[in-house]
């Protein structure tokens, strides 16, 4: 089947037009005598069977009624097309594979290399469905064994031809892409529809990923890495972790002034009071000190891959911060001292002590092994989040410190053999 879009060439004057509409306009303006069906992509409607084809089909189909091979009809109508069907018939030793003349070619325009085969197959199908020259017609279920074999071979030929066309021209016969650009399919996964891919498409349609940007904007001409000595690194750690959330910018200024006064680098005291390592020798001013702290933090955030995105949900804008789970997990795996990538059923047995021993990991591993033949492993992760309510202890608070009333409730559950320990296993927290 020829493409439904693309340039067209006029059969009369050879003029090339970019699309169907332009060709139609040219035909009606320059070749009025041809009528409106000239230079169309699709062939004009066949109003009656071509007598040449009918004769050829009857000649080829005759042996089938006399007990011969049905391949003759197929070979005759395919006329020179080196298809698998002809090869099959030739290998079967058919004696009726007489090619017909060129007049037996389809009456359609030869605009593409697909049309002869299509027309031939249609003719074959018509022969198979409506009988042969003797005028005997019947439905497919009324066919005899030879006719059924013919139908089967025709369907196989069509199947092979279709797959070949799909390989050669993947975009053939489809709707033209918007903007005149060729459609690029990425990966085979998009060729299959499933709830997972549809769910993914649901979020891709929203398009949040296109609006992402870096979590912060680094300062122009920033200079990270100025805290490059052990003493300065200790100072940086103190600034970032003091009081839990670190020092404010005002406190950083006061700290700098304190250090400058202490080592005498503020110019008001003894210049040699602090020895060689003085704060003003590294950071000339409180602003430089604050900028150095900020540059290091910005660099750490950007290098970790943090991004932000503004989500408009229900008419209200929210800013969310995130980074890639995949990259984080792989980095964590690379930095791990000891890793286990595969679960061996023989080693695990009935043991259920580690996360890798679980049935869930085994199920995922079996699913992955059935997906690929390469050496692959399951990168299993646990996810933890607190959103609706808050675990103030992060799951690390021993229950004996809890209010006695609460503790009594937990102890009740413990007596009911639902709680093995009064201590709740540790979970992360800020």
């Amino acid at each position, binding site marked *: 089947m020829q493409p439904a879009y693309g340039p067209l060439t006029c059969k009369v004057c050879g003029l090339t037009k970019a699309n169907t509409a332009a060709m139609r306009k040219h035909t009606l303006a320059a070749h009025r005598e041809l009528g409106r069906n000239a230079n169309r992509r699709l062939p004009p409607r066949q109003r009656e069977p071509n007598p040449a084809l009918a004769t050829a089909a009857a000649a080829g189909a005759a042996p089938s009624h006399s007990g011969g091979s049905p391949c003759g009809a197929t070979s005759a109508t395919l006329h020179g097309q080196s298809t698998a069907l002809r090869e099959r018939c030739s290998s079967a030793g058919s004696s009726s594979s007489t090619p017909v003349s060129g007049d037996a070619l389809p009456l359609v325009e030869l605009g593409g290399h697909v049309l002869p085969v299509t027309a031939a197959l249609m003719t074959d199908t018509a022969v198979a469905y409506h009988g042969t020259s003797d005028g005997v017609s019947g439905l497919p279920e009324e066919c005899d064994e030879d006719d059924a074999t013919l139908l089967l071979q025709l369907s196989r030929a069509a199947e092979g031809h279709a797959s070949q066309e799909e390989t050669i021209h993947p975009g053939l016969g489809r709707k033209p892409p918007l903007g005149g650009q060729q459609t690029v399919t990425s990966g085979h996964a998009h060729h299959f529809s499933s709830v997972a891919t549809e769910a993914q498409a649901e979020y891709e349609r929203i398009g949040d990923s296109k609006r992402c940007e870096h979590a912060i904007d680094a300062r122009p001409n920033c200079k990270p890495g100025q805290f490059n000595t052990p003493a300065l690194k200790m100072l940086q750690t103190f600034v970032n972790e003091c009081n839990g959330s670190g020092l404010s910018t005002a406190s950083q200024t006061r700290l700098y002034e304190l250090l400058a006064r202490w080592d005498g680098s503020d110019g008001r005291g003894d210049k040699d009071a602090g020895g060689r390592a003085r704060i003003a020798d590294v950071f000339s001013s409180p602003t430089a000190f604050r900028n150095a702290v900020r540059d290091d933090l910005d660099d750490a955030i950007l290098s970790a891959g943090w991004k932000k995105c503004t989500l408009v949900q229900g008419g209200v804008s929210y800013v969310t911060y995130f980074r890639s789970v995949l990259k984080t997990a792989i980095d964590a795996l690379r930095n791990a001292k000891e890793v286990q990538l595969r679960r061996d059923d023989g080693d695990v047995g009935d043991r259920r002590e580690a996360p890798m021993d679980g*049935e869930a990991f085994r199920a995922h591993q079996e699913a992955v092994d059935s997906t690929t033949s390469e050496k692959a492993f399951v990168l299993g992760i646990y996810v933890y989040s607190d959103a609706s309510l808050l675990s103030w202890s992060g799951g690390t608070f021993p229950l004996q410190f809890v209010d006695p009333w609460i503790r009594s409730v937990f102890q009740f559950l413990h007596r009911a053999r639902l709680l093995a320990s009064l201590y709740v296993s540790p979970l992360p927290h800020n």
Partner: protein
Amino acid sequence: MLTAALPLRFACVQPTSLFSLVAHYLYPIRIRVVNDVSGEVRWFTVAYVPIVRTLKEPGGKMKATGRRWGVLQRTLYLAFREAIASSHSGHSLPVSIGGYTLAFLRVLLYACDRPKERAVLCMKAGNFGKCCSTCEVQAKDACSEEGVTAAPRDVVETLTRHLEAAKLRRTTKARKRRVLLETESSINAFVPALASLGGLGTVPHHLYKMIAIDPLHVSLAHFLRGDMCVILHFERCVSAANTTFRQPFSDLSFSHVSFCLFSSLFEA
């Protein structure tokens, strides 16, 4: 710096108001890699979900609930986007790890509280309809024989309903059909973002088996409103999980998980 934006205030007062004095402005989502068997449990923050407050507007509470679903799911999708894209055909590692160059990321466990569980799975909160995320039991049958023999939730079927309901919500057509879909399966007209991850929305379909509930997330105010029927149903779920699923946790012992599931029902 981001951590500094999360002030935490706590005051040990009466149990009913224990959690009411806590202020969070961003909610973190953390992950842990189970392939790391070095013995040190390390959690990595991958996202901060913004808090959604209820605005003073007509139907503000319901609208805020809808916004929370959307913000949570969209943040989850952004964080898991690369993992989702490579979870079906694998992520090729430029440098091999232990001789392997192809990794398939899978979520084995999602630890959260009971409301978060409903939000992650895009299900309706409350003790009505199909209140259990793992099976098809009705809330009124949770304590009866039907609660024991209820069929497990079909991931593909439920997600298909999610997709249809989400499409209807987007097109604002066939509202009755959307309400019917939401009511029948106790779902919201939003698609779970994690459903597109390999292994959850695809074989072995562990979308509803990955949830484990953190007991300290459960508000004690809700703790007092326990429904005995739901208690017994969750006990059955726990025993079923103990015999069939058997998901072991190194830092979350199974008794702890049982307790998580058991305590979560008090919030329903």
